[in-house]
């Protein structure tokens, strides 16, 4: 059996290549995320005060919503063409496949987050700062979201109601990450204490999600 790391890097490359060729993230998900920011602006406060105060929450709500789409696409890459059997028989380590897919989603989400961060600075008027904490918390939260989303995508893969079921299963499980990420951002942006603890919580969920995903991927692939 091919090693975990090698499997992961192969699948990462494959998924990113598939994304590059289809351009769904850049062409559709990115514009959708900007639309969300605009919609928040219209719905909440033309004077920007509410938007400025709520920037961390609105940023992370947007990330969570688009991550559901990214996770579904990640699971659909093989399922769409019936290539799941190929993946199963490929000799790749299932844990490695899971990690590779998760990392591919992480890359896509980071790309989106960079643009969104620019977006909230411009549209909501909140200046970004506390960069070390901000980047660390964002990184850990993104890994947690990607891992949980990839796992959720596998759990609901191939089911008729899979697309609607995925957010219902994954979003409640990511509540601690939402709390952690928004509190860490708030602490970073306003210079308050306590942000690192919240970033740590995101890290804990990330580790648990990665472990659960890596452990389950083999048997879920077999059932698919």
């Amino acid at each position: 059996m091919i090693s975990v790391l090698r499997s992961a890097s192969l699948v990462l490359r494959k998924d990113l290549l598939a994304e590059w060729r289809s351009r769904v993230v850049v062409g559709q998900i990115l514009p959708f995320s900007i639309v969300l920011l605009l919609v928040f602006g219209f719905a909440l406060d033309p004077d920007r005060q509410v938007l400025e105060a709520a920037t961390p929450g609105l940023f992370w709500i947007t990330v969570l919503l688009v991550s559901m789409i990214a996770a579904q696409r990640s699971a659909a890459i093989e399922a769409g063409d019936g290539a799941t059997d190929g993946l199963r028989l490929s000799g790749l380590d299932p844990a490695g496949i899971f990690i590779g897919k998760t990392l591919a989603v992480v890359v896509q989400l980071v790309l989106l987050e960079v643009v969104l961060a620019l977006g909230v600075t411009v549209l909501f008027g909140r200046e970004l700062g506390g960069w070390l904490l901000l980047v660390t918390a964002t990184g850990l939260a993104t890994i947690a979201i990607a891992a949980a989303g990839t796992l959720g995508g596998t759990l609901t893969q191939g089911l008729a109601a899979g697309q609607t079921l995925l957010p219902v299963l994954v979003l409640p499980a990511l509540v601690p990450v939402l709390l952690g990420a928004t509190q860490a951002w708030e602490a970073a942006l306003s210079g308050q204490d306590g942000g690192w603890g919240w970033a740590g919580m995101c890290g804990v969920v990330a580790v648990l999600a990665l472990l659960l995903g890596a452990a389950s991927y083999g048997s879920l692939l077999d059932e698919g």
Partner: protein
Amino acid sequence: MDSTTGSKATRLMGIFVLLGTALALPMALAWTGRDVTQGDAVRFIYLHVPAAWTMYLSVFAVFIGSVMWLRRRSVFWDMVAEAASEIGVVFALLVLVTGALWGNLTWGTYWEWDARMTSTAVLTILLAGHVALRQATPDVDGRATRSAWLGLALLPNAIIVHYAVDWWRGLHQEATIGPTGAEIQDLQLFTWMFSAVIMTTAWAWLMTHRFRVGFLARQLDVGGVSTALAERRAEADRTWVDQVDRADDLDAATPVQATPVHRSAPEGGA
């Protein structure tokens, strides 16, 4: 044989629950005293806390059932997990409803973002998702495996969400539901424990019936596949016999042949 999922055990449990409830209601609503600060609102404690306890019991049962299916492919434990998550949803909703009504009398609003209620809300959605995932998976074994991996995540998630919200609320004013006042009276304590016993027995009654329902449904699912296979085989046999008959008819209709054609009957059968 019973024509229901009932049995001697469930009938005994059922009678105990009915009689116990008949006794507990006047205790909870009339004979026990009021709370120093909350007044009569504290009577929700005899419903809300036992419901929360049975909700956690359900989550634990889902967790164990999930582990046992993944480790040993135990159909028994998969059925336990199925029953526990469905019943768990109902008890979780009870916790939320009684908590909201109680909160309205003590806080003045139906909802406060405190750790227990918020983590219960998240758990309710996850349990409902567990039920939905099972219903959405047509394949019997796939259903068990997918929901088992989700079931593993329920318990740790409930714990993490609880602590996260607790910590989060610590930044703001802490709101709790609970009796206040110097000490809990003897009768109050007894009623509270008695209610918990009744509700746990009701849970066991529901679990037993629901387990049997799940098992029956599974027998039909699995039996359905065997029946379908048998039907397909019978159809294949009929098609073969038809073809042989048609060949016979063709031969009979054709003119005399130079050499006799030997035809042997098809070998094997069903």
